[in-house]
């Protein structure tokens, strides 16, 4: 980028000098344009700096406090975690460790490839023999399909990981140069964001919500909305399409990646545990028995060649009460604590602090 800018300035200057011999008026005009351009760029860069301090920008990276990278470990002396979890939004909303030494390594939308990269970079914080929870959700098996849909796994998706991974890992992310530039100059890529400098949003406190904010009819609608959005995301019309030929390669690559993650943990004396996260009865009822078998249990059986523990809470009646959720899909803080406590109890590590 810097190189391109230098080349542009050099060519422009040469052009000005060249034009000067024919018409000083055009040269003057070019000079005015140059100054205006520099002035606009200066303003944009200043605004960019201010935007980076807004909640709208910072809300995207609230999860980073759960990750202590190479720069931070000398000031953060916590080590030997008993348990950590990877995973996507359901995991981010599913685990809250207060009675065990644990860390939630879910960042929001997060597929297996990024789960694996996070594990590779941070696993030394987990103690020898500690647990690594690998969440399996209804569409985990074919989530690699989203790599082919730039509208879902786009630059902003990878920006999150560029913030917390090692530079060598970041260099392997798709479009990493653009991703890094977007992180430094978001306003240059999307000037409309300037609005948030003047009308900022509050700090995102969704994770702190302690109660169900929807009523029965809203919950029904919310559950149907989730199903509809997944069908749109994966471009399918009916459930059976999810286990059709179109997704076979993605299912297979999901199986391989999960097996690889399990092996990675076992080789490093960590205990991988496959775990499904509860969903409210409203959403659970939307998934047919055939869907559950094909998309979750067949996937786990195919990937779990080493026969590691599989804790299945997805359709568990103990956690289907809508009051434990906020909406139909994500656990609220209260549900999160109860669920995490149960997982710790099932693993025999409750009250380890």
């Amino acid at each position, binding site marked *: 980028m810097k190189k391109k800018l230098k080349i542009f300035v050099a060519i422009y200057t040469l052009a000005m000098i060249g034009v000067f011999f024919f018409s000083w008026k055009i040269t003057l005009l070019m000079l005015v344009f140059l100054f205006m351009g520099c002035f606009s760029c200066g303003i944009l860069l200043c605004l960019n700096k201010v935007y980076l301090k807004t909640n709208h920008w910072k809300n995207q990276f609230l999860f980073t406090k759960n990750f202590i990278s190479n720069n931070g*470990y000398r000031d953060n002396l916590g*080590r*030997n975690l008993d348990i950590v979890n990877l995973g996507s939004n359901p995991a981010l909303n599913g685990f809250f460790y207060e009675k065990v030494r644990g860390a939630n390594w879910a960042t929001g939308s997060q597929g297996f490839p990024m789960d694996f990269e996070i594990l*590779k970079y941070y*696993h*030394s914080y987990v103690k*020898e023999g500690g647990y690594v929870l690998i969440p399996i959700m209804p569409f985990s098996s074919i989530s690699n399909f989203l790599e082919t849909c730039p509208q879902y796994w786009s630059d902003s998706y990878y920006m999150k990981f560029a913030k917390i991974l090692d530079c060598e890992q970041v260099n392997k992310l798709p479009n990493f140069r653009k991703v890094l530039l977007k992180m430094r100059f978001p306003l240059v890529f999307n000037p409309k964001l300037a609005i948030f400098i003047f009308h900022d949003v509050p700090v995102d406190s969704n994770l702190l919500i302690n109660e169900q904010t929807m009523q029965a009819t809203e919950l029904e609608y919310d559950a149907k909305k989730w199903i509809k959005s997944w069908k749109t995301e994966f471009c399918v019309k009916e459930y059976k399409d999810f286990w059709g030929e179109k997704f076979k390669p993605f299912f297979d690559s999901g199986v391989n990646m999960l097996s690889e993650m399990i092996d990675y943990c076992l080789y490093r004396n960590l205990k991988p545990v496959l775990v499904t996260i509860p969903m409210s009865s409203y959403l659970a009822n939307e998934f047919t028995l055939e869907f559950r078998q094909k998309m979750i249990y067949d996937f786990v059986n195919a990937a779990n060649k080493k026969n590691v523990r599989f804790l299945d809470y997805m359709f568990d009646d103990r956690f289907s009460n809508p009051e434990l959720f906020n909406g139909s899909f994500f656990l609220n803080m209260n549900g999160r604590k109860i669920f995490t406590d149960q997982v710790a109890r099932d693993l025999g590590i409750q009250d380890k602090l």
Partner: protein
Amino acid sequence: MQKRILNNGIEIPSIMLGTSICDRQSLSRFGNHVSDKLLFKQMTDGVIYAVRNGVTGIDTGRDYNNEPILGKIFNDLFKNHIVKREELFITTKVGNGQQRFCDMEKELDISLKSLKLDYLDLWMLHWPLPDFYIDNWKQFCKIYKSGKVKAIGIANVRERHLLELEQADVEVMPQIIQVECHPFRTVGGLRKLCNEKNIQLEAYTANCAMLPFVRENAVLNELAKKYRKSLTQIIMRWHLQQGIIPIFSSNNPNHISENIDVFNFELTEDDMKRIFDLNIDYKYHPESVNCPGY
């Protein structure tokens, strides 16, 4: 100072002076901006003091960004006849960034040029970098056989890495490994394996960076009182008595003297065990954040 003998017959000092605290980039990363001039002065004073007081082992690494500074210091030491080259035992390491280029011969030449030396006493891979370290180690073996380095080793390994090297059928196994080891991380399995394979163990962060929980530890304080020594001296002695070479990092003359004044007392077997029992496998330097995929 006492010496130990490696499995290839090379002598190595029983205590080493580390220079990682003189990492220019790290210092600035943590807000301590030190000019080259000041850093050079601090390091020169520290190294010369240490050498004059009997420290002959000096440990650095390319990633500490101080090889050229040390080169100037060594040059001064030799030119002013403070010490002879053959009296020093100099270690440096190949960092991860350099390992990725897979040309160890070139990396050795760069280090030798920076350090102004014509051979190294010990040359190490700084990390067992996944996908690279086995091939690079094979290059290490060839270079070792050529005589440009007297001993080769790897830092930050676990048992599994040594076993992987064995399985890869390498010509020479490491003569030394260097890991984080202190009373709160006693690396029992690795120590046992090193004993079996006759590999010398070096300990970095040998006193666990004197973190608050180390300074306040009841057992260590009790032993310090009993032997009328400092906590650091108790820990250094504990390393020495089990045959581990501790590496301490300091430019401060008082600290240097304290760290090496450990040959005039002995911990009882019972006290050694009490220190071993402090183990909680505490890693001050979590490996994977220094070497992703570790």
